[in-house]
């Protein structure tokens, strides 16, 4: 025990175990809970869309850009299709693309991160140089170019987005793997002759998992945004309707000049909600993994005073 630093370290409960860390954090922090609720609601709606959508996805139920009414709370789009239905189905595709692209990005980024962090040395340097160069290239233009050259299809979009998002993950995972590698039990395992795979799977991965989850959630947010952007620029899959496509359709058909704000505002709002939910959850997890050890010495509030307690000790 040393008295390094001031005693003003944030006092906290005893250290938490790794297991159930994610769930515990999600339960405790209000921001994370809100985010989780949002995501669960949206995902459930999207998954159950075929069952709970009020109207058919391709069924025209009214005029072009019909205004909101009791039977159609969010109005109709440029094809006379009910907006609520569109939103539900659109969320499905958007989420699918988001998750799939994130999966690709996680797979690449996670692997590279683990390899670079675990083996270090030349492997690390080479992988990190590659990552650095990928980081520098601006993703949106690159995505546009690749999508334009490759042709629009859901599969291509997923791959393109995934290929561009892995760099952030790779860096973060690498840093964590490096620190885990230095831990005593890993060194002990090496000394006992455990193979690399065994060590990685049994010792490194569990420690890296919470960070990976946090990073995954945050990546989903970016992936969904990227899909929206690509759709808006006309590079999305024309045969599938994602939320981005809904916005694009409305834009193309001059929804604004027709005054049909309901064709534009709700789909974007749903996208914003999904991204917000992911940011809240991912951010809360990241914060929990890097706790700020020091309390601020200063803020608008100052320390509080209480009335004297009991008998005061006079000087003797």
């Amino acid at each position, binding site marked *: 025990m040393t008295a390094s630093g001031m005693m003003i370290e944030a006092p906290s409960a005893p250290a938490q175990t790794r297991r159930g860390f994610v769930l515990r954090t999600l339960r405790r922090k209000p921001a994370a809970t809100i985010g989780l609720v949002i995501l669960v609601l949206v995902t459930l709606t999207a998954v159950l869309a075929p069952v709970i959508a009020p109207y058919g996805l391709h069924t025209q139920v009214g005029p072009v850009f019909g205004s909101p009414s009791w039977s159609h709370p969010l109005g109709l789009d440029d094809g006379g299709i009910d907006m609520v239905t569109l939103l539900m189905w659109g969320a499905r595709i958007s989420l699918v693309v988001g998750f799939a692209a994130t999966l690709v990005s996680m797979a690449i980024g996670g692997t590279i991160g683990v390899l670079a962090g675990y083996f270090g040395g030349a492997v690390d340097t080479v992988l990190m140089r590659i990552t650095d160069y990928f980081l520098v290239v601006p993703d949106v233009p690159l995505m546009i170019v690749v999508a334009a050259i490759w042709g629009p299809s859901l599969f291509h979009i997923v791959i393109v987005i995934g290929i561009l998002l892995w760099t952030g993950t790779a860096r973060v995972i690498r840093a964590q793997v490096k620190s885990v590698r230095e831990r005593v039990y890993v060194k002990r395992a090496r000394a006992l002759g455990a193979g690399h795979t065994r060590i990685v799977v049994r010792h490194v991965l569990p420690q890296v998992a919470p960070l990976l989850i946090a990073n995954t959630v945050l990546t989903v947010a970016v992936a969904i945004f990227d899909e929206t952007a690509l759709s*808006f620029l006309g590079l999305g899959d024309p045969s599938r309707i994602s939320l981005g496509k809904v916005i694009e359709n409305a834009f193309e058909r001059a929804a604004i000049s027709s005054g049909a704000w309901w064709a534009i505002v709700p789909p974007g709002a749903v996208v914003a909600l999904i991204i917000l939910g992911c940011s*809240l959850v991912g951010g809360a997890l990241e914060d929990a993994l890097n706790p700020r050890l020091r309390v601020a010495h*200063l803020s608008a509030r100052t320390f509080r005073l209480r009335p004297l307690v009991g008998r005061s000790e006079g000087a003797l």
Partner: protein
Amino acid sequence: MRGADYVLKRVAFAIVTVFVAVTINFALFRLAPGSAVTNLSRVPHATQELRQELRKQFGLDKSKGAQYVIYLKQLLHGNLGISFENEQPVATNLRVALINTLPMVTLGTLFAIVIGTLTGVIAAWRRGTPTEALTVSSALSFYSMPTHWLGLMLIIIFAGVLPTGGMTNEFLLNPPFWTHVKDLATHITLPSLTLGLVLYGEYTLIVRSAMLETLGEDYILTARAKGLRPWTIVRRHALRNAMLPVATLVALSLGYIVAGAILIETVFSWPGIGRAVYEAVLQRDYPMLQGAFLLLTISVVLCNLAADLLYFKLDPRITE
């Protein structure tokens, strides 16, 4: 000079990265399947003369390696090729587009930096109060909004009050100077406001985080012990140190802002680099696309370099 080798290292890295970007650019546009530069039949309404010119210019009858060398030589001369669409040098088109984009992007970024810093400091200062929750929630909300959607929302809200498309009013012929300025100002408002709103949230969170971190440092306690007033401490000791990561993050994100402007320029029909990229994609104008892409990549590299050097200058602790 302090840390001369640090500076040299960063500059060298930047140069190498530019070189790599140039190579990737070449590979992407010449080697990728479906690359229309090589497949001249895909060039829309190309005249026979244009085809000949292209063939000569790009050396399409030579090997890939030779093409690469030609490409590099052309770059060094500032020759980015001829646009398919308007048959002007790509470099000229890009220059015009860049001049149009920069003011809009600069304005938006300034807005984001100022508002972001302000709200970040307030959030950190009023930690644990509803003010903090409010500022952080607003920041997160705007940060989560898709750029183009926010632009569209602003159009819906401000239609009729502010112009929602283009950079100037085309019906004004030879307007007097101040009318022209006013015209530009009204047109630039919504696009830059969109950019500012989408960006500021990230800065708020970063400033808040950096400020809280700084306020936990030991020398803040010393400053308090000396008898300085709290706000003086924030101004004189905390702000400077908390701004360190912010300064570099801003410089870094500048590179990506130009890329993000693509969406805004499309929504607002702003004749800048972003829209140039978009239209080049639509029209399959590959020289334009290639040139614009290269320009954007180099701007990111330069901004990263600027960020490194800025951080180096601001923090006397870095010596290598």
